């Protein structure tokens, strides 16, 4: 399954673009995605936190990515 991942803030700097394309197997979880990102981009480990949002909601680590999901990387927020 091909998925597109939006990257914001420092995560955009780390991956080097606003959107990342990845080929992932069926049943791939948020936790699996984070592991893969940490491997590919070790700088992510330096962040205070990294959340993944699915369809505009913070997702749990065991949530499964589904085709058509809007996926986004949420590094530590600092609005206000």
């Amino acid at each position: 399954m091909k998925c597109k991942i939006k990257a914001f803030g420092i995560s955009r700097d780390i991956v080097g673009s606003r959107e990342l394309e990845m080929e992932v197997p069926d049943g791939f979880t948020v936790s699996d995605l984070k592991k893969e990102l940490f491997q590919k981009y070790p700088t992510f480990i330096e962040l205070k936190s990294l959340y993944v949002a699915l369809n505009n909601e913070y997702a749990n680590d065991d949530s499964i990515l589904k085709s058509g999901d809007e996926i986004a990387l949420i590094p530590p927020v600092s609005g206000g």
Partner: protein
Amino acid sequence: MIKITEKPIDIQKVIDTVSSLGAGAVNVFIGTVRNNAHGKNVLWLEYEAYESMAVSEIRKIIDEASHRWPLLGWGVSHRVGTLKPGEVSVVVAVSSPHRQQAFEACEFIIDTLKEKAPIFKKEIFEDGEEWVSARPNGVTAYN
């Protein structure tokens, strides 16, 4: 009203959206860009938002505040893009029958917005830049 905007925020407009004949109190929080951080001059800030999710998270915060306090009106406007010291980054306004409710609800909304809304700011100093709160030590990266 929940708004993420690249244009300067019209504070009076946000206040106007919360006015109500049953309200005795309006509380307004205005976040402004400071000219210093970590003892260094801030040249400017870059704000970016994951807009659709930020609006959805702010809506949840407003819903919770409306359950906890008898709000008669509310408005949140957050700016994105390049902001210089002194400029307004965020305005939160609420109205309620009595004043303590307005103070508490307004503080809850801005506190929770800062915790949960996917909005990110980068401070630009003379000698580097830094995504605020991103790293544990808060050192300036990318000199």
